């Protein structure tokens, strides 16, 4: 017969509690992990280079005037993001944008990264809203329904989310999106010119949002150069499973693919394959040169700063939402960054420049 184990239960429970407490020491709590306040005399820019979508109707001059009047007040901004602040992709693009403007716009920034679990993220977003943050950025399309529920409960808090095109008709929700198909188109055309096997490896997470746009744009660009080229994307079903991305890349390579690209936080696994097999890699969302200095041909960079400037100007002007913004190659919210460590043939570079100019000038139509 076994005796009750109550005598031993307490130290065991304490040990478990200690382990759990230690585990909770990462950045999942809504405590600020980075913040800075600029000198009060620094005034924000009166306008940005990003033009809002038709939904954004507030007069820029009025907003600028209002912002100028209130810029001495610190604006508290919280960012909730699905992956790590240094993911070299989606989350990092927003973190870098916030860091680039926080001093100029007198922002106090708090970041909660690695919020893959939407239910947990919802609690973090609610926590920020109830703590008096002026703007809560939910950086992921998976957070949409959460904002739809929370926004009416915090009418004085401004929320922003993306990539998405809907504000749910809420007066305190901004939406932002990226025309990633434009950069994808340029890079796809370059990939087709670099490929000798005429098989491209394209890896995405789930066929939604800017990931699908990028993948579709990449294949459209490739086929604009060579209509017979093989460009069949693989969606792994996960934004974060590095092993699946690595395996997908290896599968493509074994099926003769000689140029690779991908989008999502998990691309680090696929980039490792490109590096190991010395194949060209095209990045998106953020620069990925550090992962494969001699293999990354170029990266489509998201620059959210102009959009954030616009949103902050609106908030300081008293408008808390109701507008949608889009970054494009044309408005400078997206740029193609070429890697000097990759020996890019001159004709390929020239083609890329030609397409960028064509898209910017509206002369090249990129399929949606």
């Amino acid at each position, binding site marked *: 017969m*076994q*005796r009750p*184990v109550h005598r*031993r*239960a307490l*130290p*065991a*429970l304490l*040990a*478990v*509690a200690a*382990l*759990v407490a*230690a*585990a*909770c*020491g*990462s*950045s*999942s709590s809504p405590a600020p992990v980075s913040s800075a306040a600029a000198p009060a005399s620094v005034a924000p820019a009166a306008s940005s280079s990003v033009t809002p979508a038709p939904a954004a109707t507030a007069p820029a001059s009025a907003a600028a005037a209002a912002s100028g009047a209130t810029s001495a007040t610190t604006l508290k901004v919280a960012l909730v993001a699905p*992956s*790590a602040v*240094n*993911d*070299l992709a989606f989350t990092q693009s927003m973190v870098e944008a916030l860091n680039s403007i926080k001093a100029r716009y007198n922002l106090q920034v708090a970041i909660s990264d*690695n919020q*893959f679990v939407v239910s947990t993220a919802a609690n973090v977003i609610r926590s920020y809203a109830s703590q008096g943050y002026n703007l809560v950025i939910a950086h992921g399309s998976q957070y949409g329904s959460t904002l739809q529920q929370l926004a009416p409960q915090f009418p004085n808090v401004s929320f922003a989310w993306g990539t998405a095109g809907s504000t749910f008709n809420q007066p305190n929700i901004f939406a932002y999106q990226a025309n990633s198909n434009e950069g994808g188109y340029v890079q796809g055309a370059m990939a087709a010119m670099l490929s000798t096997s005429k098989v491209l*490896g394209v890896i995405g997470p*789930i*066929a939604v949002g800017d990931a699908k746009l990028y993948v579709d744009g990449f294949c459209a660009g490739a086929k604009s150069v060579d209509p017979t080229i093989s460009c*069949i*994307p*693989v*969606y*792994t*079903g*996960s934004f*974060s499973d*590095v*092993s*699946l991305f*690595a*395996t*997908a890349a*290896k*599968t*493509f390579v*074994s*099926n003769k693919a000689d140029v690779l690209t991908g989008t999502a*936080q*998990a691309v*680090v*696994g696929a*980039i*490792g394959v490109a*590096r*190991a097999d010395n194949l060209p890699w095209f990045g998106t969302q953020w620069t990925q040169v*550090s*992962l*494969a200095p001699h293999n990354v041909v170029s990266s489509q960079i998201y620059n959210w700063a102009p959009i954030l400037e616009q949103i902050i100007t609106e908030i300081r002007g008293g408008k808390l939402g109701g507008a949608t913004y889009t970054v494009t190659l044309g408005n400078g919210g997206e740029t193609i960054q070429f890697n000097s460590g990759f020996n890019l043939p001159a004709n390929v570079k020239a083609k890329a420049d030609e397409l960028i100019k064509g898209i910017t000038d509206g002369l090249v139509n990129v399929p949606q």
Partner: protein
Amino acid sequence: MSQFFTAAVLTSTVAAGIALATPFLLAALGETLGQRSGVINLGVDGIMLLAAFATYYVALRTDDVLLAILAGMGTGLLMGVVTAAVSVTLKAEQGISGIGVYLFGLGFSDLLFQKLVGTPLPITTPPQVGIPLLDQIPVLGGMFFDQSPLVYLAFLLVPVVAFVLNHTTYGLKIRAAGENPAAADSLGVSVARIRWSTVLLGCTFAGLAGASLLLYDGIFQVNLTQSEGFIAVALVYFGAWRPSGVMAGSLLYGLVGAIILTWKSLGIIPLSGSDLAATAPAVITVLALLFVARRFRQPAALGKPYEREA
């Protein structure tokens, strides 16, 4: 579909499936040892994460793969001490303590990664090693005999663990501790010592699983395992607590995953079905588990802390 049934595609698909199966196999073999002695360890995934980070960090700093693997195994061993202390010596409820270990591994590995590394950098992964002569066999050579050394090690461990469990005195004691610890105790077997040893071995295997996963990916990321440790625990049930069954389950999971990816890359699975197909490995394994679990009985004392009668 015809493009799938070519030698090159079949070879690469099976080879990828075997490589994908390796972390599951290593972790599940270790868990098998623990469960046969009566200890269920739900912290495998957390241990894999910590070991993967240790492997990554040592490889990044030293560029020495062997040392990195040892660091991963050492981390597993260290976490085994924690697990055994909580589950065996303190006799905590094993499910709860395992979840605590998992959460610790998940959070602490990320914390260390953010503090010690920051911006992710790739490491040099070990090259695939062909087994002389065998790797020249058409098709089969490329499938089975041109892999990472850790893949060979994992599959070699299957008969070793089976032999230890079924044909050695130590194996007999393990099974006795898992089936009837009171009887084993009455025959002079130290149940606590046996369980400590299997937990230490199992966690070291989990550490090796984390190392193999890391070296396959070539980089660390938060929650790198994507719950592979929990799948490994399920595969022990799938394999009916037998090393050969565990190997079959691991291969099934890895191969289905590789086949799905290949079919997607060849356009056999349309984009509209892509997301549904991504769930196939888990769905097939769960269905197989439901079928197999009815036919076998788990160790009688599994999950029950043993306290000697007064």
